[in-house]
């Protein structure tokens, strides 16, 4: 039991090694089986660990693999740990990861890079597991960088398309900006606490829990770590890479850019919850960043026409909600939403992938429509995913979103109102997507229509399993008013204990909670009917690409011109600056010095060569003169 821990990340690493070394020598089916099998083994082990933790037969523990390095008094171990928080993430990563691997065997079947794709996916799972299992900040950072690398590789997977490569670069660079913040945070933690280990009596969190509230160093650490989370979890101002990351294959979008990697930031904040609880100033920043991101992304999602872009903005928006929850100290609610979101967003992405697969690569919802009879399984599961994300009970999204909003209401009514608006917008754009894709008349080409087909079982089976999870996933955390046990809260309490001692969660009365729920349901229902009347009854279509849009619509359609803003105000000046450096410093200064020394040597040679007369007697004379000169120098001076 004790040694199980290392095996969990080891299996995907082995899978990556085998696939990476064998290249195209393995048949596609073998490669798919190895990749999926390795993640399945990790999943089984995670379930074993999880059941041990739940039943109490296994304590939270850590396993030291090796001394990583030692410098002075500082020892860093490469060690893994499992506790309630990481075990939940393990289940999500390996479970959803396994389903997406299975799905990919169908989705990527005809792709040339099939085996390469699976090796990258396995590598990603390995790094993600390292991220959540590391028992100190440095191991987490290794995983953090590793998933960034895999994200880059997989976004640019179809590397022959330059714009996909640009998207991959953008993701990498944006993540790097965040990573710098994270790294500075790690340095600050080390300076302040002298260790990077989470647990133990000398661990960071134990030491931090004795600090005063709003201690400047703690606030600085919290903000630096949050900057890291902004990059990885796509929050303002570093969110623009995530929608572009949709250039990768759809399973990648589902696994990395919806279910797992982008939640690494939430994991990190939840892990360091005591630091944030002690830094209310940083919490305010987290909450406002989260809610503004959520609102901005949700409004952009209203006007997008690319099926994956809508889901991408929806992901950004949901991540914003999770940060809102973290910002008001509702760490459990945020983790809860991570889990349910992983289920339904992976489901939606995979459903979108199935639609794209059927449409021969078409992603524009203006060219879809009426797919319901052709793709019955995809339609059913997509509907379930939509209901779950919209927050209609008793599907998973309702419970987690309700918990977040209730917690936010207890803290700040203004934030709650914004969260409510986000939730309403979510309902609207998701049903808009659903109606435009599956209802009405088919708007694609004749050729596409003949090709329409339901996806193979390897793709629909994960959809079905995920939709079951999207229905049932919410039952791990019932709202208090139902008088049913909130299992998740209970389960995570060891991790959140310190925070709850320092900052009691704000209580709201049952009546308030009921009414909040009622308000949420009414809003959702209203938005559903608006979407229904607009896109189902009246069959309105989004404007074609060349149409002239109204100002507000145009601004939203172009994503508030944020990309253009970055382009104009950051990229261009930076590019101009580097051009100046190149033209002035490099060409004039550095090249000038180099050329000058060369010219000096040339000129000197030109003068001195006249000493080379070719006359032997002259040389001899000079030699004797020299010898005499040396003699005089050494004897007379």
């Amino acid at each position, binding site marked *: 039991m004790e040694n199980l821990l290392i095996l969990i990340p080891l299996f995907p690493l082995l899978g990556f090694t085998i696939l990476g070394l064998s290249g195209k020598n393995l048949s596609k089916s073998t490669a798919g089986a190895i990749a999926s099998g390795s993640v399945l083994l990790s999943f089984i082990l995670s379930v074993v660990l999880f059941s041990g933790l739940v039943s109490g037969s296994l304590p939270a523990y850590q396993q030291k693999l090796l001394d990583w390095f030692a410098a002075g008094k500082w020892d860093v171990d490469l060690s893994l740990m499992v506790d309630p928080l990481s075990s939940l993430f393990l289940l999500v990563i390996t479970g959803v990861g396994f389903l997406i691997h299975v799905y990919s065997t169908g989705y990527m079947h005809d792709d040339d890079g099939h085996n390469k794709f699976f090796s990258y996916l396995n590598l990603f799972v390995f790094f993600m597991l390292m991220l959540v299992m590391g028992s100190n900040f440095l191991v987490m950072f290794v995983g953090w960088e590793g998933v960034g690398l895999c994200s880059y590789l997989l976004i640019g997977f179809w590397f022959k398309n330059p714009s996909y490569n640009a998207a991959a670069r953008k993701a990498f660079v944006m993540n790097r900006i965040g990573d710098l913040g994270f790294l500075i945070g790690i340095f600050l933690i080390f300076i302040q606490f002298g260790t990077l280990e989470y647990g133990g009596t000398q661990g960071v969190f134990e030491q931090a829990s004795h600090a005063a509230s709003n201690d400047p160093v703690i606030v600085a650490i919290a903000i630096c770590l949050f900057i890291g989370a902004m990059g990885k979890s796509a929050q303002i101002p570093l969110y623009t890479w995530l929608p572009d990351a949709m250039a990768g294959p759809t399973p990648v979008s589902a696994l990395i850019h919806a279910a797992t990697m982008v939640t690494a930031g939430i994991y990190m904040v939840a892990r360091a919850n005591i630091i944030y609880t002690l830094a209310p100033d940083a919490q305010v920043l987290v909450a406002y960043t989260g809610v503004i991101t959520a609102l901005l992304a949700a409004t952009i999602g209203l006007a997008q026409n690319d099926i994956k872009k809508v889901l991408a903005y929806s992901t950004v928006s949901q991540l914003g909600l999770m940060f809102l929850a973290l910002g008001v100290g509702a760490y459990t609610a945020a983790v809860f939403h991570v889990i349910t979101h992983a289920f339904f967003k992976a489901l939606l992405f995979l459903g979108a992938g199935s639609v794209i697969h059927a449409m021969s690569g078409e992603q524009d919802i203006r060219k879809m429509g009426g797919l319901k009879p052709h793709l019955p399984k995809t339609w059913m599961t997509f509907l379930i995913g939509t209901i779950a994300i919209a927050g209609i009970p008793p599907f998973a999204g309702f419970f987690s979103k309700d918990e977040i909003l209730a917690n936010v209401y207890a803290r700040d009514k203004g934030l709650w109102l914004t969260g409510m608006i986000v939730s309403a917008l979510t309902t609207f754009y998701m049903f808009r997507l659903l109606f435009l894709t599956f209802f009405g008349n088919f708007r694609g080409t004749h050729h596409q229509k003949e090709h329409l087909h339901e996806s193979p079982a390897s793709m629909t089976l994960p959809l079905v399993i995920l939709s079951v999870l999207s229905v049932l996933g919410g039952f791990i955390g019932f709202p208090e008013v139902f008088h049913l046990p909130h299992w998740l809260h209970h389960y995570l309490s060891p991790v959140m204990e310190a925070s709850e001692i320092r900052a009691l969660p704000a209580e709201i009365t049952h009546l308030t909670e009921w009414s909040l729920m009622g308000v949420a349901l009414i809003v959702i229902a209203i938005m559903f009917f608006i979407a229904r009347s607009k896109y189902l009854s009246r069959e309105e279509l989004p404007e074609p690409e060349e149409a002239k849009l109204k100002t507000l619509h145009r601004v939203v359609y172009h994503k508030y011109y944020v990309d253009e803003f970055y382009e104009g105000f950051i990229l261009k000046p930076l590019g101009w600056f580097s051009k100046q450096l190149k033209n002035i410093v490099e060409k004039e200064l550095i090249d000038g010095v180099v050329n000058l020394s060369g010219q000096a040597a040339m000129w000197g040679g030109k003068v001195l060569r006249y000493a080379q007369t*070719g006359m032997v*007697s002259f040389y001899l004379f000079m030699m004797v003169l020299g010898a005499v000169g040396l003699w005089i120098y050494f004897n007379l001076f």
Partner: protein
Amino acid sequence: MDAINSINQVPISSYLLLSSVLFSIGVLGVIYRRNIIVMFMSIELMLNAVNLMLVAFSAYRNDPSAQVFVFFIMAVAAAEVAIGLSILVMIYRNTRSIDSDELKQLKW
């Protein structure tokens, strides 16, 4: 014994003077003469001036190691003469002259 004694009767300063004069003649010969053979001979003269000084000091200080040194120099000088003369022959074949001023193609 007689010979050594008679040598020792001559003061060391005379040997130094003689070898300095020989060396200077050699130097001037190398600098002023243009005939390569003469230059060559002058070089030999300088070498032998040095040899003379070495053996003189050897006798003066009763230390035979300088004489061993001189034998080495003479052996090396013999080899050097062989190479020098063969170079000289090649120069003569190419320029039909042994004037050192003829050899001034190697310049800027």
